[in-house]
């Protein structure tokens, strides 16, 4: 299981990298925080944490992370990749936070703001994540609570890429997946037992 995993946590400069590293440390998973091509090449799994705005994140990702190396690791070597929060949103083709920005385009879809449902935005707090298929990343659980902190959501173009949904005024994908590429809108590194479970299942991929 995780005993053989070697995780490379990518750090584009505005990510919640330390918390992810702390959790991997607690789970006793070998990991490194690095953007180097050798670390990416050496890893068995890649994680991209992210907080902040879509456009700013994409700019910093392009500036700090060797995308060709990551692309090769993900799409040629098929290493499992986990994008967290903004790290999931950048998987889209485009996002419209503070203007229209181009994403990585690894999972078809776009990112937009929550519609006005009369509920406070950002979506902040613990909410239910319901798996569309089980078993999946939630193990044998159909629904688990995770911590969310976002004002924008991912609109998946292909429903097959939606692995779990959450409802907050509207129902949106909380876990997206396309083969070895996984995105979670919530923060597993802040979601205590549920987060640990999800990470352990991701590391089994």
């Amino acid at each position, binding site marked *: 299981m995780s005993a053989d995993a070697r995780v490379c946590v990518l750090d584009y400069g505005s990510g919640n990298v330390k918390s992810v590293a702390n959790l991997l440390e607690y789970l006793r998973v070998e990991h490194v925080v690095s953007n180097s091509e050798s670390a990416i090449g050496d890893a068995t799994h890649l994680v991209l944490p992210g907080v*902040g705005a879509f456009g700013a994140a994409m700019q910093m990702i392009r500036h700090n992370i060797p995308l060709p190396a990551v692309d090769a690791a993900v799409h040629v070597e098929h290493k499992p990749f986990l994008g967290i929060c903004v790290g999931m949103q950048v998987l889209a083709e485009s996002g419209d936070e503070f203007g229209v920005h181009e994403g990585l385009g690894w999972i078809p879809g776009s990112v937009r703001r929550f519609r006005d449902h009369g509920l406070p935005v*950002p979506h902040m*707090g613990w*909410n239910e994540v319901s798996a569309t298929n089980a078993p999946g990343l939630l193990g044998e659980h159909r629904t688990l609570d995770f*911590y969310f902190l976002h004002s924008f959501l991912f609109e998946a173009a292909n429903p097959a890429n939606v692995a779990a949904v959450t409802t*907050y005024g509207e129902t949106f994908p909380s876990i997206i997946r396309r083969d070895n590429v996984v995105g979670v809108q919530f923060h597993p590194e802040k979601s205590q037992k549920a987060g640990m479970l999800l990470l352990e299942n991701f590391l089994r991929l």
Partner: protein
Amino acid sequence: MKKRRLIPVVLLRNGWLVQSIQFSRYLNLGNPVWTVRRLSEWASDELIYLDITSDDQYDLRREDLGAPNRRTFLEIIGDVSKVTFMPMTVGGKIRTLDDIQVRLSLGADKISINTMAFDDPTFIGRAAAQFGSQCIVVSIDYKEVGGAPRVMVQGGRRDTGLDPVAWARTVEERGAGEILLNSIDRDGMKSGYDIDTIARVCEAVRIPVIAQGGVGRWEHFEEALSRTSVDAVAAANIFQHTDQSVYYAKQHLMEAHHNVREPGLISL
């Protein structure tokens, strides 16, 4: 369904974990890191960690303890983030965007700003643009002055002349993602929240509001949850009085059928 949150607040003063009474009296409780470990072990929903030190003297005054005597706030936060397994808001003495960046990179998920939000009208906007609104909490401390609630800054020492409801609307417009509303008069008094002001602020804004100030019994949390639309209820002192406090508070709220996470335990 999204749950409402129960949030412990940890106050740091000159390196000590403290209890606070009306922003004017402080009781030293001890190490500012170990308590966070306990709060994590009780699966707290979130943590708010506030530095209320007015100078830069951080000193536990002895070097013979099991935990190191940290002399800077950033070192303390570094230690804290290693034992925090829930989202953490860090606040206190935030003056520049760099202050925010440093704390985020040390493990904070959100930053709370107070005095600076008032002194520099562009600060909230600039912070939200760089880090995202969801990262920016504006903390509003208020107390009764001449019969009306007034927003105070600088640890309750400077009167802004503003009404908390009006100020809440302003900070929302400027891009704050969340409001931490704290009653100075009720701080440490254990007589319950200021339900009236909390309700009015919640009605005035669309961003989440956290209530703080005055909890002496678990029933006080219930009052705020039942009588206002507040998104989260917070308290500092009470969680330091009994063991497994957060666990039992959650159990109490769950048994009273409030929309909260069920109690849980994590072994660290």
